[in-house]
């Protein structure tokens, strides 16, 4: 377990301090969400119907913008070889990186989803459901993103490629999460939770398999 926590602490510290830290993805999310009413027009009813689901798209883009360097930096500076040599399973280390990504980016965006949902005219009674579902959904995005980042770790400037590979798999969390934004805790929320947890587990294993190939 110490390998898990030391990897988590290292990656969390790196994400917190480097490249704008936690403020940059948060600001990206706020900016992207602010573009929605600018595009749709401020009419209250239209915005209330379509606005909150669109914050899911902004959250997905925020993840896509930050995962490119997740494994690429480790591949380049040799940390990946150290991870492969350690006695802890690579899947555990990948999970620790995913957890660090979620803590640095997923959780802050989930919390920021509360004021953003209100700004996009969501009904206040749905806001707790929106926050919890975004937190779960970001976990699912992280799981899918781990696989995409591991597959493209050796490709220079691969952020668009990661987006292309990973976006089809973002579809189910976005579909179910947006349904939560209009219906609260219910069947859609349970489907979202199942989907997110499945992505985390399967994504960890797929990412570890891909990373073993990258290091060869």
């Amino acid at each position, binding site marked *: 377990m110490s390998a898990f926590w030391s990897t988590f602490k290292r990656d969390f510290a790196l994400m917190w301090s480097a490249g704008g830290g936690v403020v940059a993805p948060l600001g990206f999310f706020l900016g992207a969400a602010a573009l929605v009413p600018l595009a749709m027009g401020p009419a209250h009813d239209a915005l209330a119907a379509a606005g909150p689901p669109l914050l899911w798209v902004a959250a997905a883009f925020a993840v896509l913008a930050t995962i490119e360097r997740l494994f690429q930096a480790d591949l380049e500076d040799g940390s990946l070889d150290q991870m492969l040599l350690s006695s802890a399973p690579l899947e555990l280390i990948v999970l620790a990186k995913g957890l660090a990504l979620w803590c640095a980016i997923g959780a802050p965006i989930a919390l920021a989803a509360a004021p953003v949902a209100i700004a996009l005219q969501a009904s206040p009674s749905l806001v707790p459901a929106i926050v919890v579902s975004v937190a779960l959904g970001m976990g699912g995005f992280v799981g899918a993103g781990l*696989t995409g980042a591991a*597959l493209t770790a050796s490709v220079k400037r691969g952020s668009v*490629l990661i987006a*292309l*590979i990973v*976006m*089809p798999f973002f*579809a189910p969390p976005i579909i179910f999460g947006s349904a939560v934004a209009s219906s609260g805790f219910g069947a859609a929320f349970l489907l979202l939770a199942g989907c997110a947890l499945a992505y985390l587990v399967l994504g960890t294993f797929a990412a570890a398999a*891909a990373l073993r190939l*990258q290091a060869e």
Partner: protein
Amino acid sequence: MFAAFANPARFMSLSAWLTPVLGAIAFILFAVGLPWALAYSPADYQQGETVRIMYVHVPAAWWALAIYAFMGGASLIYFVWRHALADVAARAAAPIGAVFAGLCLITGSLWGAPTWGTWWEWDGRLTSMLVLFVIYLGYMALRSAIEDEERSARLGAILCMVGLINLPIVHFSVVWWSTLHQPASIFRPGGSAIDPSMLGPLLTMAFAYLALFGALLLMNMRAAILRRRVEGARLRGAA
């Protein structure tokens, strides 16, 4: 059985005659199937003449799914047994499958405009088919982006196998969700529900698409193997 075809030289001599044979079969089946479907089959009692788009749209959809399943199987065989030609087959099949998926989406849209009154609808079947098309594009992009051939093959194999989850979603989307797209008429429990006068041209077109896929696949695979030989010769010549 697959091990017998792992030898590229044996594959090249087999495909040297099989490719034109499949091409000829495809030509004949299209020559029979297209007039039969587009002119000599009955019009639908509800849709009229627009039903003829079905004979182009449905086989394209079937084969877009089946080709992805083929790629998934080939990727698994390559990933587990390092079968040399399995990876070549997966990479060669991808553009053909992508074109079939795109054809399915476009002809479906053209069919939906007069019959449903809409060019597109975000229901389960259409959305999951669009997702399949994007997965094809992502696979082709990943394979071209990684220069090292063996790494590209193994990482592509992982991506292709991960994408297999979409296939049952596409097939069962018309069962699980209330969709605008009609439910399954042929691959369903209880057998086919389509009239034999329409089933004939539909199956002819389906086999025509299959023969076309076979011919194009073998052509792509031969080109890939020849490209590898050229690269090898160039590297040896430079030494």
